[in-house]
């Protein structure tokens, strides 16, 4: 079983639209939306939830005002400025480290488990999908990404899938690092702009750091052919091969607005390019059953 992670560094380059089309083309795959912070893949794959579970992660301190004598020990110790002058805990700042709890001379502080979201195992027209919804202003997205990836491996193994296709999140921080570990290949979706190139360079460095091999696809490539080529050359220098370009095509946004997957909606230039990219991916990843 292979795990393919779609990343971009920069947001809004078209990861989710590409993943949804690849999901349609795949015949024996499971899917993961690892952008738990702003998950969108469900808007295109319309999963039917089969199983849902709460996601608890970390702790938040709670001060019992009856017991608290306002000695200030907790405020002195807390490195996150999470306790205000009225001895109330700001749950957005509290990291749940518990330092205040075991140092409170009055035993007035307890730690409560944090309900940070929900995760789902769902069915789509093309196979199982594991996804999640992080709670409003919740943290620990990296932990949630690790959890749903673990669940996706269980589901994929049970159902004999030979590919897990993972829609990643933008950036380079904790959710991305949690999504990178143990994948066989990354597929990078780049856009031909100065930000696109800059962000991709940092992403290439990250993938090098974690020794993850990758392919690149330049999306909306014909908006700036010179920049597209520059991106492909930079990638080639890092051993990252191009699997093709996707041209700018109004059908991409139209499909999105219609809540449809590009390759279902259109037989135009972008859809055609994505199909070619999928054929190459199958060869490269040796996906016999896809």
């Amino acid at each position, binding site marked *: 079983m292979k795990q393919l992670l779609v990343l971009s560094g*920069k947001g809004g380059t078209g990861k989710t639209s590409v993943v949804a089309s690849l999901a349609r083309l795949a015949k024996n795959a499971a899917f993961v939306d690892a952008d738990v912070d702003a998950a969108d893949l469900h808007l295109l794959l319309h999963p039917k939830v089969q199983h849902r579970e709460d996601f608890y992660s970390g702790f938040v301190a709670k001060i019992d005002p009856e017991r608290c004598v306002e000695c200030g020990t907790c405020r002195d110790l807390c490195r996150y400025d999470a306790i205000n002058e009225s001895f109330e805990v700001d749950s*957005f700042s509290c990291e749940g480290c*518990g330092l205040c709890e*075991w140092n409170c001379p009055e035993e007035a502080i307890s730690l409560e488990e944090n309900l940070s979201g929900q995760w789902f195992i769902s069915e789509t027209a093309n196979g199982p999908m594991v996804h999640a919804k992080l709670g*409003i*202003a919740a943290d620990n997205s990296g932990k949630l990404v690790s959890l749903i990836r673990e669940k996706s491996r269980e589901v994929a193994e049970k159902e004999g899938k030979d590919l897990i296709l993972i829609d990643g999140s933008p*950036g380079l921080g904790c959710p991305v690092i949690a999504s990178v570990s143990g994948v066989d290949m990354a597929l990078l979706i780049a856009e*031909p*702009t100065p930000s696109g190139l800059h962000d991709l360079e940092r992403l290439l460095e990250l993938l090098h750091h974690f020794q993850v091999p990758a392919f690149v696809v330049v999306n909306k490539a014909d908006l*700036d052919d010179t920049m597209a080529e520059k991106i492909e050359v930079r990638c080639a220098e890092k051993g990252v091969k191009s699997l093709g370009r996707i041209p700018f095509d109004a059908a991409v946004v139209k499909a999105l607005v219609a809540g449809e997957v590009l390759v279902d909606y259109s037989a135009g230039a972008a859809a055609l390019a994505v199909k070619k990219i999928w054929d190459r991916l199958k060869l490269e990843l040796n996906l016999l059953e896809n």
Partner: protein
Amino acid sequence: MSRTTIAVASGKGGTGKTTLSVALALALAKRGEKVRLIDADAEEPNDHLFLDIEPQDPQEVTIPVPFVDEDRCKGHGRCREVCRFNAIAIMDSKPLIFPELCHGCGACSLACPEKAIEEKPKVVGWLETAETRGVDFIQGRLKIGEPMVVPVIAALREREADEGWTIIDAPPGTSCPVIESSKGTDHLFLVTEPTPFGLNDLELAVGMARALGLTFSVIVNRAGLGERGVYEFCEREGIEIVLEIPFDKHIAATYARGGTLLDADEAWEAKLVELAHNTAKEVRP
């Protein structure tokens, strides 16, 4: 002189946070107003590309991580007991530290009965500065491979201007890095685009803004591109749309060349200055 801090965020990536933040800062500076622009997207900082500058003087951002003095350690394992981030394991009755999991809370060093744990700074990123066209610029840059960006953003937030404007370009998403970038600001602009993804992620961002108790308004980028969902949502929720940036080939082409909104059309200068002043009036009537 008063001070106003405005953060620019969005649930979805690539909606135009950087476009807006840079143009807003340049427009105010052109009118001779004091502006500090903070690029808080330390994972992928891009403002400098559009300001056409190379930020200088990297200042280290560190978090304290524990080091064990093996001669002193008696293997009580108290450090592992108090660490809630699984950053300490005990191997052969000696602690083994995983610095990438450490949140720098200091519990282990305080708990050690032998005082065998010393905290030493670990670099997680840098702050870099530059000055251009009247904009006082500072950006965060996460060290590649480091998972925790929040300490870098926290360090940036300490560099808000004492007077005049501070514009904070936040990272995408709605979780910890965005919260750290926007909490306690005077106003939050949520930039979105009129597509189903834009709407879904705007709803999440609005939820975050409300949970943080922030006053906020919406800016629609690539207006005319898609559908009405974003507008209907804002109307239903009583959220003001304070600016629309049209879906326009000329703007996109200017962006692709590394140009700003002001390069695309000078008229944006007046619009953005008016937007900033109206926002400030709401903050301090």
